[in-house]
């Protein structure tokens, strides 16, 4: 068995298994959909039953937030209108719009120790390459494409322990590295600068692996003493990543490291 494992390791390394993997993924996809269709409602009912009080509290909180956000949208729309008028008056044209985004569905997940990877149902057929950024339907950062196999792609979520995203606090410009943890939560490591609970974190764009300004989440908790060089900052993702079914892939952005490899 150990010898077989060594042989498999070599075959994986030289890419001999990739064609079989593509074929297997294609054949197994319908069966996986059936399994997900059967067990998703069961898991949903169990989860909801266990979190009924939390959900009621969250619902009340969301109603308040919803009202505040609606008011904020109104303010922003007015500001946008004002900017447009000023741009017209000064003869300025707006910069480039949003990049091209492809819609994809999550086919299956692999959430085990230290690993949080999902498979999406688009791949080379839509021009996906490793390194592309994956967002929620509302534009929050979800993860990055790590591998493309035929018409499917594997996405490493930001809650995966191996994920590290250079981030900045939108309000104060404080910087740090958002990283996943084994219990699928997010933390802001090496955090420097002024950070408060409720601050919004966005990608910093440093290192060229992510475009600048993609929302990640909010600061949920800050712990540590005044002597600590770096505070322990817990981050609440803006989207409940474990329940996301539909995602967007930003096909207009390919990281510098991957461009260099091509």
């Amino acid at each position, binding site marked *: 068995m150990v010898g077989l494992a060594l042989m498999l390791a070599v075959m994986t390394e030289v890419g001999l*298994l990739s064609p079989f993997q593509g074929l297997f993924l294609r054949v197994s996809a319908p069966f996986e959909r059936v399994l997900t269709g059967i067990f998703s409602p069961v898991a949903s009912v169990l989860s909801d039953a266990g979190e009924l009080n939390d959900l009621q509290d969250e619902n009340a909180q969301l109603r308040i937030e919803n009202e505040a956000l609606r008011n904020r949208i109104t303010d922003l729309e007015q500001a946008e209108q004002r900017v447009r008028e000023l741009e017209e008056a000064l003869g300025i044209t707006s910069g480039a719009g949003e990049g091209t985004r492809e819609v994809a569905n999550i086919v299956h997940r*692999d959430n085990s120790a*230290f690993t949080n990877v999902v498979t999406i149902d688009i791949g080379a057929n839509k021009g996906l390459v490793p390194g592309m950024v994956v967002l929620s339907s509302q534009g929050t950062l979800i993860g990055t494409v790590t591998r493309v*196999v035929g018409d499917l792609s594997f996405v490493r979520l930001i809650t995966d322990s191996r994920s590290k995203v250079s981030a900045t606090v939108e309000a104060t410009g404080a910087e740090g590295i958002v*990283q996943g*943890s*084994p219990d699928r939560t997010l933390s802001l490591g090496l955090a420097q600068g002024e950070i408060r609970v409720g601050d919004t974190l966005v990608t910093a764009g440093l290192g060229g692996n992510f475009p600048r300004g993609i929302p990640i989440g909010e600061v949920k908790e800050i712990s540590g003493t005044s002597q600590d060089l770096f505070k322990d900052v817990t981050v609440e993702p803006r989207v409940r990543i474990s329940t996301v079914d539909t995602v967007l892939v930003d096909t207009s952005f390919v990281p510098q490291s991957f461009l260099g490899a091509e």
Partner: protein
Amino acid sequence: MKGFLIGIGILLAAMAQVTVAPLFPVAGAVPEFVVLALVLLVAFSSPRPVMIGTPIAALAYGFLSDRAPALLLLGYLPLLPLGYFLEESRVPVNHYLRAAAMMTITGLWLRTLLAFGAMTAGADAAFGVLVTDVLVPGFFLDLALLTVAYIPLRLIGWTGQGMTLERTGYYARL
């Protein structure tokens, strides 16, 4: 026909690992359906199909999750030696406890190995979290899963089989 059904069962277990298991997490651990399938195969069939089924399971789960099949194969490796050891060591435990020991020890080994694999790929070396959030919940999850699967099979009349290749006629003592 039996071999075909066993193969289908293993493939279904691998598919359940990436579709059903993530829906029922306990802390940082998820049910290990592939290990469960292999343990039940050893317990109610014989170790021989497990020798063929283990690489198939590692390949299938590796393909579906984009993990290294070699690492998964190493993760499932303790199953058969454990079965042999528990049966031959004259430890006074019944068939269920032997299956439970195989399930939990292989589960612990697999999760540790996969965590180490992730750590070498860039994850933080959080050994405390590995123990408290992954291994301890995983142990109880494995035990519960095996109990839920094993007892009904015994109740419908399946009989426990020997867990060594020798007892199933594959290997003759010299």
